[in-house]
């Protein structure tokens, strides 16, 4: 037990000494202390009560102000038409190089229900099923009569449907304004544009987000309010794209191919004027990604960019150009092409026997694998790798659609001498048609690197020099000769001096080895050959045609005629004048009057 001292001790001791009772003194002291304590407590409590009162008052004031602010703002739910005006074009348009619209927005409505406010749920469900046959009556009735307070019915409805729903006349059916993306040209340039979907959804608006193509790559730009809806201008030309798609589709059907791709590129600027991949889809109703089967059979697959293929003999021109660039050969140097060329257990053969020796030009014109392999042996693995790298063939195509990120070229794991020899004629390396077009553009523009782009450029690119002007000119001459005298004789288009190189590569089996009867037929062309403006790459997947009593699969019989027809259609649209030699002015004598 703690002992409390007697207080005030001095007076108590004094009182004890006098023999008086000290209790009274202590009680008196206790009372005084108690009063002092109470006064202290009261003073403190006064202050704190004041603080409490002020705090309560402030808290109520804050609630009142907040109520006022909320009462002063508009309701979230669209009860009146006025709120529709707040949703202006959120997402910028996409146009072609001449400003024609490729993607834009339209205002539409979503349909939702407040079942608790519904008067006749059964009748509403019945009427809705009549308007939207894809809805289920049972499901709707269950939703409308249950405890749910909010039911989405349709994300997008047309004005006619809206009017029909409005005519049902039930207060439980409500509309929310929606902005949706519209691709007015349907399937045109579908793979470039990609598609959209709704992101975060509210009652009065929904985010429109890009899911593929340029819509996805430029999503931030298109949605940036700071850009004030400035359209995204692509390098595509709508008319050219339409013609190219039409021709390629016809060609694919005629040649019984299962797929096709084409890339048309400006050789100076790297602008892609048209890029087609067939089969295609409608971005307004983008199909779901396939869950089974090979992904490259899906219409969503972009063969021009995502598809990496062994593009075969089209690569030969690079080998020839590099050999010339290094000064190892000139166009008329004669190379021994006796075959088969043995390398270890490998044998390299030609499609036909071209005799004992050919000049470099003739190797390209006749497309001799052995001759090209010999050139590659002279060049060597390291230098070949550097050269192909400088052409941009060893990395992903830097083109601005999201699918390009999947376009990594397939390269040999070990760049051995045999790899060097097969790569020289386009086997053992897989790139996309977009890669090939950019590399041909380098040959066509006089030897500078070209980076493919889908955005409209202000002027020509001046990339790093890959080969000299003279070598590029010599290579172009060879390409021209392939059309005039060689494998691509069907590629001649009067007035446009087409030059190009064919390539027919056996398709690899998924489990190794090659199919005997399935090829990828490619024609990479430049036109006009004397001063090339454009590069066109046409690729057909598994073409097969009957000509002169034989089944033909090689590019010269399949891809080349399709490309020629495409150039025939597209060149005038691009504003190229055909250079036709004037015919004989028969029977007319020019005379002078004096």
């Amino acid at each position, binding site marked *: 037990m703690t002992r409390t001292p007697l207080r005030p001790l001095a007076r108590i001791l004094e009182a004890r000494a006098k023999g008086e009772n000290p209790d009274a003194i202590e009680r008196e002291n*206790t009372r005084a*202390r*108690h*009063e002092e*304590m*109470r*006064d202290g*407590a*009261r003073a*403190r*409590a*006064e202050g*704190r*009560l*004041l603080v*409490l*009162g002020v705090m*309560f*008052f402030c*808290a*109520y*004031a*804050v*609630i*009142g102000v*907040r*109520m*006022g602010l*909320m*009462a*002063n*703002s*508009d*309701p*979230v*739910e669209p*009860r009146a038409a006025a709120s529709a005006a707040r949703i202006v074009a959120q997402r910028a348009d996409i146009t072609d190089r001449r400003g024609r619209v490729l993607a834009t927005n339209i205002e539409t409505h979503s349909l939702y229900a*407040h079942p*608790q*406010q519904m008067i006749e749920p059964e009748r509403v469900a019945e009427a809705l099923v009549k308007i939207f046959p894809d809805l289920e009556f049972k499901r709707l009735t269950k939703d409308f009569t249950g405890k749910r*307070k*909010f039911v989405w019915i349709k994300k997008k409805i047309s004005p006619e449907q809206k009017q029909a729903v409005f005519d049902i006349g039930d207060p439980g059916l409500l509309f929310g304004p929606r902005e949706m993306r519209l691709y007015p040209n349907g399937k045109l340039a579908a793979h470039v544009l990609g598609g959209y979907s709704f992101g975060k959804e*509210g*009652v009065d608006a929904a985010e429109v987000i890009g899911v593929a193509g340029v819509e996805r790559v430029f999503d931030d730009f298109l949605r940036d309010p700071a850009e004030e809806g400035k359209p995204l201008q692509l390098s595509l030309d709508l008319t050219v794209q339409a013609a190219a798609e039409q021709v390629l589709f016809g060609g694919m059907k005629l040649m019984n191919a299962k797929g096709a791709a084409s890339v048309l590129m400006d050789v100076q600027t790297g602008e892609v004027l048209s890029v087609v991949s067939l089969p295609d889809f409608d971005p307004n109703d983008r199909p779901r990604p396939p869950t089974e089967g090979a992904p490259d059979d899906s219409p969503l697959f972009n063969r021009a960019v995502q598809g990496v293929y062994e593009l075969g003999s089209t690569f030969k021109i690079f080998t020839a150009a590099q050999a010339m660039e290094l000064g190892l050969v000139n166009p008329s140097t004669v190379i021994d092409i006796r075959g088969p060329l043995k390398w270890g257990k490998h044998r390299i053969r030609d499609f036909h026997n071209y005799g004992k020796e050919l000049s470099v030009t003739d190797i390209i014109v006749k497309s001799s694998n052995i001759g090209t392999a010999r050139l590659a042996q002279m060049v060597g693995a390291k230098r070949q790798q550097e050269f192909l790298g400088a052409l941009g063939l060893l990395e992903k195509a830097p083109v601005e659609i999201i699918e390009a990120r999947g376009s990594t070229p397939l390269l040999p794991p070990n760049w051995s001498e045999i790899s060097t020899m097969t790569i020289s004629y386009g086997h053992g390396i897989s790139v996309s048609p977009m890669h090939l077009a950019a590399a041909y553009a380098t040959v066509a523009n006089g030897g500078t690197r070209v980076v493919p782009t889908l955005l409209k450029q202000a002027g020509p690119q001046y990339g790093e020099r890959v080969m000299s002007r003279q070598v590029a000119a010599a290579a172009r001459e060879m390409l021209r000769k392939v059309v005039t005298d060689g494998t691509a004789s069907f590629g001649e288009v009067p007035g446009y001096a087409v030059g190009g190189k064919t390539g027919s590569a056996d398709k690899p089996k998924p489990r190794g080895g090659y199919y005997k009867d399935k090829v990828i037929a490619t024609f990479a062309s430049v036109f006009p050959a004397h001063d090339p403006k454009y590069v066109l790459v046409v690729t057909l997947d598994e073409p097969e045609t009957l000509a002169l009593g034989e089944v033909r699969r090689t590019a010269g019989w399949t891809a080349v005629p399709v490309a020629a027809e495409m150039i025939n259609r597209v060149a005038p649209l691009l504003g190229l004048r055909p250079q036709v030699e004037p015919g004989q002015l028969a029977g007319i004598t020019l005379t002078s009057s004096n």
Partner: protein
Amino acid sequence: MTEMVYGAVPVREGEPVLPKWWRTVDKWTLSCVLILFGIGLLLGLAASVPLAEKNGFGAFHYVTRQAVFGGAALIAMLITSMMSPDLVRRLAVLGFLAAFIALMGLPFFGTDFGKGAVRWYSLGFASIQPSEFLKPGFIVVAAWMMAASQEINGPPGKSLSLVLAAIIVLLLALQPDFGQASLILFGWGVMYFVAGAPMLLLAGLAGMVVLAGTFAYNSSEHFARRIDGFLNPEVDPRTQLGFAENAIREGGFFGVGIGEGQVKWSLPDAHTDFIIAVAAEEYGLVLVLCIIALYAIVVVRSMLRLIRERDPFIRLAGTGLAAMFGVQAMINMGVAVRLLPAKGMTLPFVSYGGSSLIAGGIAVGMLLAFTRVRPQGGIDEIFRGRGR
């Protein structure tokens, strides 16, 4: 002689009870409470109709009940407010004991009405929620203990009352009823603050709360999501909060018109927790500001009157009752305007509910009894030269 002292009220021997009551009671608070009750009935005419229709009663079934319970509550309030503070204390302590026993008996005899929390005793025609009656009783008991601790050689009342509060909070949390538990804690905290909590402790507690909140936010995903949802300015219009917010916006300054509101059809708690949204939608900001002002007047006026009080018990008990009354209204309205995270709490005297009405009547009656003008012993002190 006594008339010479400002603020002192003469004690008249043998004065009848009613005139004395009328002379000394805080008429402002009394009027505010009566007006609030009237507003509650008015709003009930709109807000409780959907519930009555759903449960198959006549349209104004709940309004009638509210009026009956309200009448009982007002009578309880008047009778309580006529008692002397000592009598209030004695009865409140007895009432507290009864309510405490009833609270402990809940798990055995209570019912949950299918709502998942056992909070009620069913009496057939009505139900009783013991925790509503426990609140004012607890305030008085805790105030008594704290006041006793201010005596020299008195009991350690502050610690004892904290232990009591902890036990009650535990019992309430088991139901679970975190709303009432937090009110009990808050009431105790306010009284402890006024009874002289050390500043250092208060600062330390504030720091601990911030630390604990940060820790909980960083470590508990559930907690973080709730806070994020609360801080997010966008609210899903399909939730209760979304409906309430929309209703306030629809109402604007003058409301959409009596009986024209829509929110009462969408909100299951329109007649209790979200009655302020109904008020805002049908009568607009005007009525809402009136309601806020009424609560503010009751609380602030009671506090100001208690500043002059010299008896520690009366001061503490009055503070606790006023604070609890005020904070309950504050939380209810704060939730509706999204200043506070969602928490079910009724609006005293306005929301529908028998137990809460009668218990509220008793509590405000006590508050009125404590804030009545009475001699403060100031004259003695002046004579002894210690007055102010």
